[in-house]
C-alpha cells in the first residue's frame, strides 16, 4: 500500500486523531501523518475541513473525510481485512451505541471536570463515574473488547474508547481527581493493562510527561474563561 495515497491530519495529543491512527495500524495501511497546530490552523486544514476546522481529517486518493468515528467506519469499509466492527448487525449497533455513549457521557464529563472547579467539577465527576459504571458492566465485561473470549485483536470499540487507558489517567492527575479506582472498575483496569501493552498501541501513544504539561496548561486556560472550548 503506497503511503502517499493516504494522508492523515492530526494533532499529537488529540485522542480523536490518534484513534484513526490506531485503526490504520490495525489494517496495516501506510499513511503520511501531517501534524497540525490546532491553535494556528493551516490553510490546508481549513480547506479540507471547512465545516468544523478540526482534526482528524483523512485524505485517501484525493477524497477528504472528517469526524473520527466516521473515519473508523470508512477505514473498516475500505480495507476489509482485520475487520474492526463485528459482522452481526446487532453487535455492530451495540458497538456504535457504546462508542457514542463513551464520547458523550465519559469524555465530555471528564473534560468538564478537568476544566472546572468547585460544585461544577464535583457534579461532572459524579456524572463521569456514573457513566463509567455502565461502561464497566456493559463494555469492559462485554464480548467486544480486547481480551474477551480470548480476543487478541483490536476492534472498533477498543479503538473508540481507547483514550480511557492513557488520557483519562492524565486528566485525573492534572485535575487532582480520581475516577478510575481499580477496585471499583476491575474489568476496566484489566482492559487498560491489555490495551496499553498491545503491540500496536504501545508505541503509538503521546508521551505522558508532555501530556501532563499540555493539559495542565489547557485546564488553566479553560477554567479561567467562560466559553470557547476546543476539546483537546
Amino acid at each position, binding site marked *: 500500500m503506497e503511503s502517499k495515497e493516504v494522508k492523515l491530519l492530526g494533532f499529537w495529543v488529540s485522542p480523536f486523531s490518534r484513534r484513526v491512527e490506531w485503526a490504520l495500524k490495525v489494517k496495516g495501511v501506510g499513511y503520511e501523518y501531517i501534524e497540525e497546530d490546532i491553535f494556528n490552523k493551516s490553510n490546508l486544514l481549513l480547506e479540507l475541513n471547512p465545516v468544523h476546522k478540526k482534526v482528524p481529517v483523512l485524505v*485517501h486518493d484525493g477524497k477528504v*473525510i*472528517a469526524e473520527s468515528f*466516521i*473515519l473508523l467506519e*470508512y477505514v473498516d469499509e475500505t480495507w476489509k481485512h482485520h475487520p474492526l466492527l463485528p459482522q452481526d448487525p*446487532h453487535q455492530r*449497533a451495540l458497538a*456504535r*451505541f457504546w462508542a457514542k455513549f463513551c464520547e458523550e457521557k465519559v469524555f465530555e464529563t471528564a473534560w468538564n471536570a478537568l476544566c472546572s472547579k468547585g460544585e461544577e467539577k464535583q457534579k461532572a465527576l459524579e456524572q463521569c463515574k456514573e457513566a463509567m459504571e455502565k461502561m464497566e458492566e456493559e463494555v469492559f465485561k462485554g464480548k467486544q473488547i480486547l481480551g474477551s473470549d480470548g480476543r487478541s485483536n483490536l476492534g472498533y470499540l477498543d479503538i473508540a474508547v481507547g483514550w480511557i487507558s492513557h488520557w483519562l489517567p492524565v486528566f485525573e492527575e492534572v485535575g487532582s481527581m480520581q475516577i478510575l479506582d481499580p477496585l471499583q472498575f476491575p474489568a476496566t483496569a484489566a482492559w487498560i493493562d491489555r490495551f496499553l501493552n498491545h503491540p500496536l498501541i504501545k508505541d503509538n501513544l503521546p508521551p505522558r510527561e508532555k501530556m501532563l504539561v499540555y493539559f495542565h496548561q489547557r485546564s488553566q486556560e479553560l477554567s479561567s474563561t467562560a466559553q470557547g472550548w476546543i476539546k483537546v
Partner: protein
Amino acid sequence: MAEEVKLFGIRGSPFSHRIEIALKLKGVSYEYIEEDLQNKSPLLLKYNPVHKKIPVLLHNGKPIAESIVILEYIEETWKTNPILPADPYERAIARFWAKFLDDKCMLAAWNACWAKEKEREKAMEEASEGLKTLEGELKDKKFFGGDKVGMVDIVATFIAFWLTAVQEVVGADLLTPEKFPILFKWSEDLVGCPIIKENLPPRDLLTANFRARLESSK
C-alpha cells in the same frame, strides 16, 4: 418464524419519525408503541435502561437505541431501498452530514427559535450558518441522497417539517425561500414525497404543542 419488529416512539418526535420512515421505505412491518415521556413504560425502561429515551427498536427481542444507530441497523438488516450509498467514501459523506444535522444544525435551529430576546440575534446567526452550510451541500441535487431520499434527508426532516412549524408559532424566519431557496425547495419536495407525507405527524399537533410551550415560557 415471523420477524418481530416493534418501535417505541412518540407521535410528535422527529427522532422516532426517522425510524418509521426508514422502516416504511424498506417495507418492514412493525408494531408501533406510543410512549408517554411523563410516564415511561416498564418496557421502555427495560429496553433502554441507559438513556430511557425513544426511539427504541426491538427486533426479535433485541433492543437498539439512538436514532442514527437504529438507522444504520435497519440499513444493514433490510437491504431493500438502501438509504446509504454503496461506496465507502459516499457513505462517509452521508454520515458526516447526518451527524452535522444532529449535533449542530438541529440544536442551533431549535435554540434560535426559542432564544430569549438578548440571545436571539446570535442564535439566529448560528442557525443560519448551519442552514447555509446545508444549502451548499445540497447544490443541484434534488435530495441529499441524490435522486432518492436517503439517510441524510430522513435525519433532516426536522428542518423540512418541524422547523417550519416552530418558526410559524414563534415568528422566526429562519428557513425562507428568499434566504435559502435551494433548501426551501428541498423541504417542499421532501414533505411532498408520498412516503414522508403519509407518515408525518399532523401539523396542528406540532403547532399546538409549540404554542403550549410558547405560552408556558412567557
